[in-house]
């Protein structure tokens, strides 16, 4: 069945909410408005306003409320209209959700999903266009997922909803309308398992979320130039499936990482360090990263284009790594 990324998320939540009455959806405009990006279309009609809860614009308040509800045995799904606004809820996420279990010596836990779009859309400027996944990956006690395809989005969101730890689930505005095949019937995808999205022998390209689509199209282009690229999608950013990435690198000997976030302390820096530690002797060339530029996102179209990784930059990086010995 071919569905959009948006519809895949909708199906995942709908199936899980039908299965378990402890699950509720809370966030700005999730109910009668049908979701700021229409991910929860039809939910308030099916599940009622008791389980599909519109909130005032108070991210710290409603995220904290959801964490408290999770402590008392419910399974909230918090929709952040975008992860930019999640910054307002960082105290709740970092100091409460992530640490409750540890601080209490294992007595408390916060089984909830905090989901919504991250990264840039089109010309939304600095405060609405940023990739903050590295912030969440930095914090012990959180799991972080950033799926790229409708199939992965559905299977991973279902797993996230069934998870007993807090999960940060990062979507992308520019992925919502993308379409793809999703599995028939009931399925889940385990958290912490990467997938090889395209097999190849010459170089490993690691990319996640929206950047996966860029990596795949770059790989197609490169194949015409005789470079056979393997594309690995971590899907889960924490815990990272290093084994799958390392196996690929052991085969190809070369690695380029594509990420939309800022370069300094970005996720690619962590992946590179992990690969250097685990597979240094297998590398034929230094690892290169293609990242967003180290600037707040500009509004003007040519400037925005220059700030985000594109196919030309990915291809140039791949060719440069393939050229060096």
């Amino acid at each position, binding site marked *: 069945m071919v569905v959009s990324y948006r519809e895949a998320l909708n199906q995942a939540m709908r199936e899980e909410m039908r299965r378990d009455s402890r699950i509720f959806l809370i966030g700005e405009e999730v109910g009668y408005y049908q979701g700021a990006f229409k991910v929860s279309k039809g939910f308030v009609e099916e599940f009622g306003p008791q389980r599909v809860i519109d909130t005032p614009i108070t991210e710290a308040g409603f995220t904290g409320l959801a964490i408290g509800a999770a402590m008392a045995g419910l399974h909230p799904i918090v929709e952040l209209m975008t992860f930019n606004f999640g910054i307002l809820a960082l105290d709740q996420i970092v100091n409460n959700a992530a640490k409750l279990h540890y*601080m209490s010596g294992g007595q408390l836990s916060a089984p909830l999903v905090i989901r919504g779009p991250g990264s840039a859309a089109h010309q939304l400027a600095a405060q609405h266009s940023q990739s903050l996944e590295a912030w969440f990956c930095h914090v012990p006690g959180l799991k972080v997922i950033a799926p790229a395809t409708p199939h992965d989005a559905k299977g991973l969101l279902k797993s996230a909803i069934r998870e007993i730890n807090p999960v940060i689930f990062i979507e992308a505005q520019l992925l919502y309308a993308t379409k793809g095949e999703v599995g028939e019937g009931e399925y889940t995808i385990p958290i912490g398992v990467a997938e090889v999205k395209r097999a190849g022998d010459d170089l490993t390209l690691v990319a996640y979320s929206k950047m996966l689509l860029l990596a795949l199209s770059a790989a197609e282009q490169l194949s015409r130039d005789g470079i056979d690229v393997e594309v690995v999608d971590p899907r889960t950013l924490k815990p990272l499936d290093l084994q799958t990435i390392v196996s690929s690198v052991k085969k190809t000997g070369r690695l380029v990482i594509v990420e939309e976030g800022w370069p300094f302390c970005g996720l690619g820096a962590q992946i590179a360090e992990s690969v250097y530690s685990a597979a240094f002797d297998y590398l034929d060339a230094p690892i290169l990263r293609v990242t967003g530029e180290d600037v707040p996102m500009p509004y003007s179209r040519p400037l925005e284009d220059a700030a985000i990784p594109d196919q030309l930059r990915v291809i140039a990086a791949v060719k440069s790594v393939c050229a060096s010995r």
Partner: protein
Amino acid sequence: MDRADLLSLYRDMLLIRRFEEKSAEMYALAKIAGFLHLYIGEEAIAVGALAALRPDDYVISGYRDHGYCLARGSDPGQVMAELFGRITGLCKGKGGSMHLVDLPRRFMGGYAIVGGHIPLATGLAFATKYQKLDLVTVCFFGEGAVPSGQAHEAFNLAALWKLPVIFVCENNRYGMGTPAERAIALYADVAGTARSYGIEAERIDGMDVLAVRSMMRKVVDQVRANQAPYFLEAMTYRYMGHSMADPAHGHYRTKEEVEEHRKQDPLLSLKRTILSHNLGTEADFKQLERDISQVVTAAIKFAEESPFPGPSDLHDDVLAKE
């Protein structure tokens, strides 16, 4: 007035008082480290308020949390062991003074980001309402938390969604060293902050355990029945510094001011009431002192004899396991 009841309230306050005094001693001996915020002077609120609850109601608080834990019935040995950082502590030594949790007693924790636990309290109350349980959640915080944004977001949600949560604001006059009148616009009527959200609110004498309990009984019954929030501003005073890092009075208040407030001491007041109504004798109080002294000594012994967590415990409980 019932003799056994009053002596029991006195005993509960005395346990907190002596436990805290001993904790201060242990801090001076470096048996306890980090931040240690003492509750001495405010005992009537924890004891009076929690006496009005059922065992399955939820309780959550800020970081000055030993009193609630003890008043809720936690084992003093496990509390002291937590302060000592031992594996036998309530939280296996991982929480410490500011993060006590006792889940079987529904004490959902002490939290150390001022105002940050108030949204959690609304969440506990949201959950019990969602689950159609007739439970209430009591959330303790100091007046210093009231101006915080998270408190206001939580008050708004609690009022908007009619959540069965009782906000107990312990107004001890100072947020660390800053007096309320330099921190809170409505300092003369902190309860008014909650009223502005349509939450019913009252100010009470937090130094009088009987007044606290009788008001809490009314409030708990009302919140349980009506499933809507309530805000109590309990006027109180902390005798010690903000934490053990401070002297008892410091630059921000005078020794005379502290002495003046000690005259309203909640333990002394209750003792006077008991004696004046011939419901107890000096001998009863001596006996209580001996009993509590034994409890606290045993708690120290338990803590001291307990092992520290080992290196293998470091990575446990980062994530919950199925």
